[in-house]
């Protein structure tokens, strides 16, 4: 029964709208406000509920091109997402310049950039340039463990 993309998506959206509606009804209400803070959320929840039901019954577009992602590409995307997660975790610990340099170098290398020297130069120069540009604009990026 859940054989089309639309139907699968519709079921997910249906549950999203139910959860959203439950959260909306739980919002506290006040006595002397003509339009309380839960009015719009409840309205939106109901609209999404109706739309998800409608989506369940419409046919998928005839675009036969099933976007099949080669396993290799999927792995590449997941690895990059992993890199981004590491970046976020370490940003405030080891500092902007260091983590950005490492990220640019390894991410570009992983994606197939073979010119190591160019890569190294960009990875080192760019973080410094950005760091000091932001400092000139009075935005302080995390300094981290570097002494300067």
């Amino acid at each position, binding site marked *: 029964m859940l054989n089309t993309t639309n139907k699968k998506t519709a079921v997910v959206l249906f549950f999203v709208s139910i959860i959203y509606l439950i959260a909306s009804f739980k919002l506290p209400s*006040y006595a002397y406000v003509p339009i309380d803070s839960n009015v719009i959320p409840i309205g939106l929840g109901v609209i999404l509920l109706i739309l998800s039901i409608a*989506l369940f019954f419409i046919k998928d577009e005839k675009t036969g091109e099933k976007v099949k992602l080669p396993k290799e590409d999927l792995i590449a995307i997941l690895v*990059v*997402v992993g890199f981004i997660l590491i970046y976020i975790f370490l940003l405030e610990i080891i500092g902007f310049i260091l983590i950005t340099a490492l*990220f640019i170098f390894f991410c570009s290398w992983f994606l197939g950039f073979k010119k190591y020297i160019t*890569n190294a130069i*960009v990875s080192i120069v760019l973080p410094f340039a950005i760091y000091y540009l*932001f400092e000139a604009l009075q935005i302080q990026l995390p300094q981290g463990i570097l002494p300067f």
Partner: protein
Amino acid sequence: MDVFHGLLSGFEVALSLHGLLFVLIGVTVGTFIGMIPGLGPITAIAVMIPITYGMDPALALLLMAGVYYGAAYGGASSSILLNAPGTSEAVATSFDGYPMAKQGKAGKALATAAIASFFGGTISIIFLTFLAPTLAKVAISFGPPEYFALMLMGLTALSSLSDGSTIKALISATIGFMIATVGIDSQTGTPRFTFGNAHLLEGIDFLVLALGLFALAEVTSLIITRKEKVGKSNTIGSLKLTKNDFKEITPTVGRQSVLGFVIGVLPGAGGTIASFLAYISEKKLSKNPDEFGKGAIRGVAAPESANNAASGGAFVPLLSLGIPGSGTTAVMLGALMVLGIQPGPLLMGDHPDVFWGVIASMYIGNILLLVLNLPLIPYISKVLKVPRPLLTSLVIVFCLIGVYGISFSTFDLFLLLGFGVLGYIMRLVHFPASPLLLAFILGGMMEQSFRQALTISNGSLSIFFTNPIACVLIIIAFASFLVPIFKTLRRKAKVDQSVDM
């Protein structure tokens, strides 16, 4: 002081050697700041405030005007080249600008953006010069019901005119609106959908959503095509617009500049709504709307001219009433007050030199932007020559910095990644991302004006129908759903005919 006298004395300052130098610096700095995601006109002007402190107000204004226009143009170029709109005003530009860049027409797209912004800006300044006092009166008559209706119209029009299924577009818009409800409700102070997380109290920043949905999601396709050699897609192409191109964009620029100016005058509406409405209406007017989203030159010209015209329009309430109509003009107001100038009804009477100085500096800033940026385009578009793997890492880093630079919290970075994944899934299941983003941008304001309107009417919905302007706008909003229905019917009729044969 009459209009011409005033302008003349304004130009005297602006065209002095000092004046020109400051505009020049402003435009250059602004363009570079604007190109970095996360740093838009607002930041650019804000960081200029301490620099201009103590300067001659007239020169300071010239610098500001230059920065303002430069940053707006810089934002458009990162939209076009990287699909990474740095400001909400530049989102609509990416719809056709980025496809054009992909087809090897980046130079043309950037030139179109520059020319369209120039004309949009110039037309709106001319209007501003002559109409400011009158228009100010109209703007204050626009109350909550009219605003709500205007924004509703923008939203439904975008949903019903986007490609593919209208239902999917509406679902996108609803989800965008839902994301906008996260945070403290500004009328009652109730925290909504924050799940006890302090980071969510202020709501989700526009940039987190825009960079995630557009730029990070685009990164996935950069990864998939990472092995492609630097080929056709990486060439800049000619900058020159052909005669046909000019013929195509002239009427677009003309009407969208007027539209943009009118929307810009309304406080709160501003460049974002103007650029989206311009894009939508241009698509609707076009004989072959299918070209839009696939690199139509009009799709770049329309939002850019409207956006810049709106920025001129936004100065009407700022200068004549002292009410800033947008985030950027709010910062401008701050900057003016630091310089000892209080915009408002008295400005024209008390300090005509300042009033006309502002307007003259806008003319000059606009012209210099065009003069400076056209020759810079080949250098700016060098970005496309960067090898794919390196470009991919750089885009990711810029997204991360852009978000971190405004919130200084890694929580927002996780959100950014989350929206990137959402954007990618939406692409896989063919959901359009632009209605989601527009609904998110407008959601907060729509809810406010909806509730203010109902508070005025004591809870009765009739206020939207007894008010003539609001009523007409709402009718148009719902009528726009008829367009896709007609299309489907016509398609069905065609299929039936072919079956008969």
